[in-house]
């Protein structure tokens, strides 16, 4: 039988990485794409630009703390700013299912407009398609974004170095659990809210404070575990993190426990992980904590020479274990 695309090819985990590397990247291969960052950085004459795209298929489209429109704007902005770029312009593409409620659509585009304004970016081009009922699920959104890098930064997933401290900008797992607890068939009463937000203001402040940030990424699909594994692989280093230091809200912990999820693998939509030189780590955390977006920032670990391409977690009781990359489909359609 011919091979079929499995849901896990979009999970953010091992299967997706393999699918991208073996099927997609092979055909499109070029030096910029082959860096496999969430955005590409390139020069046009004297200007250094960043470009990124992302599609949003979250289910349900409305969840505590936001909706698909918030994700579509904030997500693409965050992908741009993870290389240190200042986001400038966005495009928006809608694929809408026939019969979708116009009022809901307006709520979504209001959110998009507000998010864009708040982040100081403009939506300057777009496209709208409608498909027959049943041929899509309510609404899918694609956004692409372009940003500019104002100095000679090299913040890239392949640039983490042994000795670097690993900083997270806030609590883990809020978005994934907010969506999951409202998903049909699960529906748990909880006060968990998505953390969806744009991180460009936070990153601006971080870059004013220091030029010693080596790598940054937003731990979306596949969560913190997957992002750390990606960086460990790209930079060919090991990473140690400390269970005691991981910031996780009690309600997220409880929901994860009930449903059998590890918060390390649950998606975030308003967090970043930064790999920074050790001497500025603590002062950078202070700077981050002075912002709304980074008020719970903390150091969760460090980059090591040992265990290349692996992430090791020191447990709260003093043991250790590997944190592997997500396998299978933990949670389809989380963003």
């Amino acid at each position, binding site marked *: *039988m011919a091979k*079929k*695309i*499995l849901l896990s090819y979009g999970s953010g985990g*091992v*299967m997706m990485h*393999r699918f991208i590397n073996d099927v997609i990247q092979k055909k499109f291969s070029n030096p910029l794409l082959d860096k496999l960052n969430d955005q590409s950085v390139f020069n046009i004459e004297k200007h250094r630009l960043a470009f990124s795209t992302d599609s949003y298929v979250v289910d349900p489209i409305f969840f505590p703390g936001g909706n698909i429109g918030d994700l579509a704007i904030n997500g693409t902005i965050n992908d741009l700013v993870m290389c240190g770029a200042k986001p400038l312009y966005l495009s928006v593409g809608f694929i809408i299912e026939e019969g979708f409620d116009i009022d809901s659509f307006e709520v979504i585009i209001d959110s998009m407009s507000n998010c864009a304004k708040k982040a100081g970016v403009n939506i300057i081009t777009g496209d709208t398609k409608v498909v027959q009922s049943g041929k899509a699920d309510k609404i899918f959104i694609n956004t692409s974004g372009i940003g500019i890098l104002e100095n000679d930064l090299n913040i890239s997933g392949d640039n983490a170095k042994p000795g670097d401290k690993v900083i997270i900008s806030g609590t883990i797992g809020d978005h994934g659990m907010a969506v999951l607890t409202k998903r049909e*068939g*699960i529906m748990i009463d909880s006060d968990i809210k998505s953390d969806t937000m744009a991180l460009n203001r936070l990153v601006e402040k971080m870059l004013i404070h220091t030029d010693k940030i080596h790598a940054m990424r937003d731990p979306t699909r596949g969560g913190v575990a997957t992002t750390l594994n990606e960086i460990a692989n790209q930079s060919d280093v090991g990473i140690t993190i400390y269970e*005691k230091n991981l910031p996780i809200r*009690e309600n997220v*912990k*409880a929901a994860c*426990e009930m*449903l*059998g999820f590890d918060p390390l693998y649950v998606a975030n939509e308003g967090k970043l992980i930064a790999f920074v030189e050790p001497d500025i780590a603590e002062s950078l955390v202070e700077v981050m904590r002075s912002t709304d977006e980074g008020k719970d920032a903390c150091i969760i670990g460090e980059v090591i020479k040992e*265990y290349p391409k692996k992430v*090791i977690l*020191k*447990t*709260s*009781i*003093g*043991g*250790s*274990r*590997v944190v*592997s990359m997500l*396998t*299978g489909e933990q949670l389809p359609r989380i963003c």
Partner: protein
Amino acid sequence: MKFITEFRDSNLAESIIKLLRKEAYPNSNLMEFCGGHTVAIFRSGIREVVPKNVKMLSGPGCPVCVTSNSDIDKAGKVVRYPDVILTTFGDMMKVPGSYDSLYDLRAKGYDIRVVYSTIDALKIAEENKNKKIVFFGIGFETTAPTIAASIIEAKRRNINNYFVISVLKLTIPAIKKLLSLGEVKVNGIIGPGHVSTITGANDWKFLPDEYKIPCVLTGFEPLDILLGIKSLLDMIKQNKQELVTEYLRSVKPEGNIIAKEMIEKVFIVDDSDWRGFNVIEKSGLKISKEFEEFDAEKVFDLKTESSIKNCGCKCDEVLRGIISPVECSLFREVCNPENPLGPCMVSSEGACAAYYNYYVE
């Protein structure tokens, strides 16, 4: 009360670990029966902190892992009937049966849906009156009451398009079988916390009484397990064989009476085919005559050709505690969670998956 953090308190854990290391315990093999314990032990790094001469063995207590190929083939057969929607717990999706995994079958277009509970399966039945909804009922005493409840509820509400393939298994006959085979030396057993919540602690007295093996029924948090290990090692050192319930916040001597009554109402005890053990006498639950209209094996013809064994996979020996997953030549390179050859690598509670995901080499 935060209800999780207390049982992960690192200061308390540290003091138990200190006590464990101070005491000179004899060389001991401790077996955790339950897959939930296997994962908890790896996730909290307990193997690293117990005394060096204490070996932790993983037992056959993962329901997905012990589900035999012949059981999975029944699910693979039922989806081929017209108008069938198969519902299953997510962990079963990737287990390779003799021919296909449910994952493969879903990608081929069969309607197979992952549910979190039997209540979801019942709901699908109510919403799809013109379809036949089959629930793939795997699990131990812990899952059996929820499946029983769904069948009782279906009868009460006259839902006549809901069916169950019952391949439920009972843990105690399997432990007895494992011990009677005598392939591994077990000095102490960490008993299953959730199963004993249903069966009651009393059902586990046979371990010290008949087999002269101390047993601790414990919870799944790091402190639960550390206390359980300490209690077992103390008994081994003092040559005492007793049953200790550490998991007092969940396990009662008589168990969960209501759940036990439900199991008795809906099921009868029958022989069952276990991966790793073949057929174990009186170790399974089949749907009783009173509820046979819900028994998928009565409604559909699910008899399959004799099942095929996976070539080279040593899950059988892993399940019996004879080898550790890393001793299987297929481990990691050939058999891994994306391409599992055996169920112990598929299930999140399987010993192979636990080694693969958490073990620091």
